[in-house]
């Protein structure tokens, strides 16, 4: 079964990759297909012993002692309560009788791997968290905080329904989509904060290394396990919460959750992880 699973992954990835055509800009080409291939090859070459789909397990794909502690947690994971709460919330109708299922394709089940997507009408990246709050507002409900439990529970349930499905992010042949992708890439490699670190310094140059108690996760598949229950937070965290805390770790002032930079960053990071399985919700240190 494992071999077939891996081959399935590769095929799914190749089809997804070949979809988006490169855009030639005045100065240099923005070529997501080539980027994604180079991105994956870098990690596969740097960690030959790590199976492709195992990268989504972040620090646990990098360190045996940590992995053992993770496997123990996964026997009865701490995100169990968020998952149940998310399932309940997902089915509870809004005041107008509708539910989240009415806002999403396939009733919101098994679709997490297609988020974020580029909305060509709006010309912007739409993430799962943004779509959930938009669904609430469209049905007369107040939006929930992007960094708190309700959003984490909802995304935990939606991720759970997609477990195992390969990440499948599309970049339509639209200059604005390629620009959003490029913004995300630039953000990822730009040094920020007084400590002068870019995301890439930790997650590309030194995954597997220790940052005091923590082992740095590889960037490949880094969002596949989201949302995560972190022992550090003694609670759930969405992608928004993770980006905000990463910024403050380098002593940079975080941006508003779901601001353009963060949504483009999520677009880039998800795209270059196409083909790797969704494993959310996850448990992390």
């Amino acid at each position, binding site marked *: 079964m494992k071999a077939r699973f891996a081959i399935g992954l590769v095929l799914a990835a190749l089809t997804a990759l070949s979809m988006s055509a490169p855009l030639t800009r005045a100065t240099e080409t923005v070529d997501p297909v080539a*980027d994604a291939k*180079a*991105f994956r090859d*870098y990690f596969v070459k740097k960690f030959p012993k790590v199976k492709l789909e195992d990268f989504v397990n972040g620090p646990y794909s990098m360190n045996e002692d940590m992995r053992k502690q993770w496997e123990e947690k996964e026997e009865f994971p701490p995100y169990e309560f968020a998952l149940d709460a998310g399932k309940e919330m997902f089915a509870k109708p809004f005041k107008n009788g509708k539910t989240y299922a009415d806002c999403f394709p396939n009733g919101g089940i098994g679709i997490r791997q297609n988020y974020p997507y580029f909305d060509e009408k709006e010309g912007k990246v739409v993430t799962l968290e943004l779509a959930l709050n938009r669904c609430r507002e469209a049905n007369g409900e107040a939006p929930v905080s992007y960094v708190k439990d309700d959003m984490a529970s909802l995304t935990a349930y939606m991720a759970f329904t997609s477990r195992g499905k390969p990440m499948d992010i599309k970049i339509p042949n639209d200059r604005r989509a390629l620009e959003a992708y490029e913004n995300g*890439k*630039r953000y990822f*490699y*730009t*040094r*920020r*904060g*007084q400590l*002068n670190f*870019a995301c*890439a*310094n930790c997650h*590309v*140059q030194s995954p597997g290394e220790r940052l005091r108690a923590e082992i740095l996760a590889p960037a490949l598949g880094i969002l596949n396990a989201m949302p995560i229950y972190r022992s550090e937070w003694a609670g759930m965290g969405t992608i928004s919460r993770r980006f905000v805390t990463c910024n*403050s770790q380098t*002593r*940079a*002032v975080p*941006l508003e959750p779901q601001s353009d*930079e963060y949504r483009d960053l999520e677009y880039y990071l998800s795209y270059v992880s196409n083909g790797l399985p969704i494993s959310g919700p996850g448990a992390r240190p």
Partner: protein
Amino acid sequence: MRVFLAITLLILGASSALAASEADFKAAYASAEAAEKEAGTLRNQWLPTETALAAAKKAAASGDFDAATAQAKEAEALAKASIFQATSEKERWKDMEIH
């Protein structure tokens, strides 16, 4: 760039010898705030800048304008550094990109 820094340090050293007045503080705080605002437009502010600005305000409120001015100058230096970081990274990020 290094020469410029050396000169500012000299000026800073000289003026702090005299006790800072409220006016000195207000001027220093205003330019620090302006620099931090610019860092904001570049979407690249630093947390230490904000702590220094807050410390400056607190010191001024308690009437200690020496400390308040020093903190405001510190905040301005930090804000300027974050602006420098944003502008220098505009192209430099590509060096780190995986190819």
